[in-house]
């Protein structure tokens, strides 16, 4: 693979990664949000495969397939099941409307560039220059988490953050050591299963998955 094609493919994958993340802010239909999340998982898998192809690293390619499978296949599957069980298919009333959210995403992108300055200064290169993209998705995920009121939207926000951290890991260092990567993936999977079970319980005891109903505990 030539340098030029490698950089093009890398940025294409990063672009898809960013676009799917930002579009989550735009959609209110929960099944569409899950589909976007699955697409983002694919983009992340593709990103790792591009890195692997350029570095001719078979192990990295296998990790890419694994990460893509987890984030584009297994996690969306679990969430679709949670959605089917929950019955509520729309984000009823996010605290911030879609247009404002998209504007906020632009501000977050600038913030991400500012934060990643030390990284780009340490090792300028095509992969490091893409780190702000991952950090933008991280901040967008956090924004989704704090402004959405459905249990499932909050899970998506958490998973966007996690995708972004994984993308940062692969962009900066081609991934943390395998044992850590395995642990991280397992923990994320388990965290989602825990949240899935809890969503179920929230519905059973509160009669819905609107988190505004959670106000038994306060001082």
């Amino acid at each position: 693979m030539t340098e030029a094609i490698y950089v093009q493919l890398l940025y294409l994958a990063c672009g898809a990664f960013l676009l799917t993340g930002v579009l989550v802010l735009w959609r209110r239909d929960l099944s569409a949000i899950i589909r976007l999340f699955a697409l983002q998982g694919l983009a992340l898998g593709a990103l790792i495969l591009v890195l692997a192809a350029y570095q001719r690293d078979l192990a990295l390619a296998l990790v890419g397939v694994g990460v893509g499978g987890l984030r584009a296949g297994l996690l969306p599957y679990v969430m679709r099941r949670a959605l089917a069980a929950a019955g509520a298919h729309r984000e009823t009333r996010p605290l911030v409307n879609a247009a404002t959210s998209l504007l906020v995403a632009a501000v977050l992108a600038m913030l991400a560039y500012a934060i990643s300055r030390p990284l780009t200064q340490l090792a300028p290169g095509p992969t490091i220059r893409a780190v702000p993209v991952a950090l933008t998705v991280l901040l967008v995920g956090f924004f989704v988490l704090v402004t959405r009121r459905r249990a499932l939207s909050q899970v998506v926000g958490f998973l966007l953050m996690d995708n972004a951290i994984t993308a940062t890991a692969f962009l900066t260092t081609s991934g943390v050591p395998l044992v850590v990567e395995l642990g991280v993936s397992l923990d994320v999977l388990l965290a989602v299963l825990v949240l899935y079970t809890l969503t179920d319980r929230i519905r059973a005891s509160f009669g819905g998955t609107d988190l505004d109903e959670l106000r038994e505990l306060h001082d």
Partner: protein
Amino acid sequence: MTASLVTAPIVVPLLSAAGYAVFGWNRRTAWLGAVAAAGLLVGAALLAAGTRGGAVLAALGLLRADALSAYMLIVIGVVALPAMLAGPAYLAAEAAAGHVSPAAARRYGMLTQMFLAAMALAVLAANLGLVWVAVEATTIVTAFLVGHRHTREATEAAWKYVVICSVGIGLALLGVVLVYFAALHAGLSEAQGLDLAMLTERATGLDPGVTRLAVLLLVLGFGTKAGLAPMHAWLPDAHSQAPAPVSALMSGVLLSVAFYAILRVKVIADQALGPDFARVLLVVAALGSLAVAAALLLAQRDYKRLLAYSSIEHMGLLALGAAVGDALALAAVLLHVLGHGLAKSVLFLGAGHIQHAVGSSRISALGGLLARAPLLGGTFGLGLLALLGLPPFSLFASELGIARAGFPSGLGWAVVVAFTLMLVIVAAVGRHARLMLLGPAPAVAAEPGIRVPRAVAGSLVAALAVCVLLGVTTAPLDGLLRSAAAIATGAAP
């Protein structure tokens, strides 16, 4: 031999968890958890002796035990033992009230043991990434324990707990990634890039810009799990809703295990960035936590939440000691970890029995506890005195140590602010304690006498006795404390 001692604290609870998975929770397996906790404590003591000559590696270099890990293991064992001894009585009471099915009891047995194993892994991991995995694993395991009672409150607490802690710990993961990035650029190999010992040794070569960002994320992330402000919002809910033995473990030792991760990060940060960066972060977290605790303790109406906010207070105090950062301060911090673990487990275990008997966790429902249940009221009252830092309990000695170390280090102003806030806390908790222990009994005090099972009563008294003993003399732990503090200051490898 010593290498197998390093893996034992993780393997023993896992075996016991497997035992619960296979045999379920019944009269014969009920004490298995306590046996495993005792085994963990014995293993920790042997390991403390075994690491006297230096760190011991095990499991292909993934695990590493030094004096600091051994000390933290002792704390885990010391808090786990009374918590596990209280488990059978807790489940029996819940079963009598019709709250637990056999499946739930089996799950309780498994999860508490996996919880112990995850904490042991966190303090034994040689690799910063593995520390992260273990700390996140504690969140996942305890999520179901917090939600064990299936009530609306418990479900809400579990949801907040998992979401806030997973996000916080996610930030720490980004910090881990950035440390690894900086380490590779400092010339460390891929196998060494996250190794704590290697990172500490080569910290001066790490890029300051990236490291600063990484340390900020790591302190914020692990600080979330440690219950430090501003990411403490989950703590009062989770600690007040979890079953009493789990609250004791979470408050008494899980917070400290997360704080241990911050101590390890601080050693690297001090070498790479100079001591000021981590110090500023920790002072902000410390004073913020103390202020939050003071504000919310003043008008607190729920005694379990009162205990939870007191944990935030004590974590703030630990952060202050770590910010001071010399050998005296860190020895005091480590002693405080143990003293707080002992006192907090006494209080949460006592609170569990009180709640079962009274049927409410409101302070106003308690009046005259000392007369209604002398043993329980007495241990609860003494536990509160210990928590407020009164002599002869060890928390008095450790708080004094932190204050004494603070003035010469230039953080005298922070110590003054912190102890002013603590005076407010002493006044607030003291007032609540007087109401609960001595105040007039509520008019409807028609409950049958509050009885505490012998195993629980024994462990409550024993834990308080150890706390007093450590307040009088730390002689049995002196050598270990000194070497652990040397590691935490970065003076020893």
